[in-house]
């Protein structure tokens, strides 16, 4: 390959490959916007927190207190005063746009992010 590349050519090629690689990562890589969780109670938004921080929240609802756990970038209901416990059975939520609600207690949580998934798709 002698005589094919000048020093400047070599530097340019390396720089071009690095630039394009960086573009791939920044355009196609995971969304840089951190996810957040939004909690609603009795028609009002009561909390908006980053999903990255682990914590346990007690939210006062219409019937009593719902306990919501945030852990490892996901969130779920761990306790609620309702009878069916559907909110607890719905399990962990981790993707932008996902929602869980304890309807009798009027408490809901929703994951916020830049690329929200569709709520429903209709054919």
């Amino acid at each position: 390959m002698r005589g094919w590349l000048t020093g400047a050519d070599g530097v340019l090629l390396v720089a071009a490959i690095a630039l394009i690689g960086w573009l791939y990562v920044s355009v196609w890589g995971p969304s840089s916007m951190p996810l957040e969780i939004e909690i609603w109670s009795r028609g009002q938004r009561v909390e908006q927190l980053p999903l990255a921080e682990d914590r346990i929240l007690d939210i006062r609802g219409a019937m009593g207190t719902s306990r919501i756990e945030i852990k490892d970038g996901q969130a779920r209901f761990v306790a609620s005063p309702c009878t069916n416990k559907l909110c607890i059975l719905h399990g962990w939520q981790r993707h932008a746009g996902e929602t869980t609600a304890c309807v009798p207690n009027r408490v809901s949580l929703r994951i916020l992010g830049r690329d929200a998934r569709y709520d429903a798709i209709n054919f």
Partner: protein
Amino acid sequence: MQVTTTREDYRIAWLTALAVAIHLVEATLPSPLPGIKPGLANVITIVVLLRFGWGSAAWVSLLRILVSSLLLGTFLSPTFVLSLGGATASIAVLWVASRRWTPAFGPLGLSVLAALAHMSGQFGLAFALFIPHPGLLHLLPVLLTAALLFGITSGIIARMMLQGIPENTP
């Protein structure tokens, strides 16, 4: 009225004809993505730049875009605008790269620079004028990868052609 032509005019006309021929052949090739094509006419621009200087290269490049668009029937269409934008960006970058105060690039480096500049200019125009949608940005790295690969290919061809053309061709 008498139009006096110089030796250089003839040379530019011949080289432009060659570049137009390559451009037309390439226009018949199917493309996987709009905006991606080998751009082998770029070889002529690089060879002219290194043998006859930037002025001739700019003439050959811009005349090629104009004549090819007239022959293909795309003159003043969006295709023409994008093509002209790409060629202008590429010629501008080649001007900077061929100055004394910039590092000495060989045919490969110049070809890669021209290809990347052409693609960026074209993409920038397409984004600004025709499709200002952030989704278009997802295509940019793919398009630039194609430009890099085709730039290297053109550079290798240009280098082989230059070996066949003596240093001080009149």
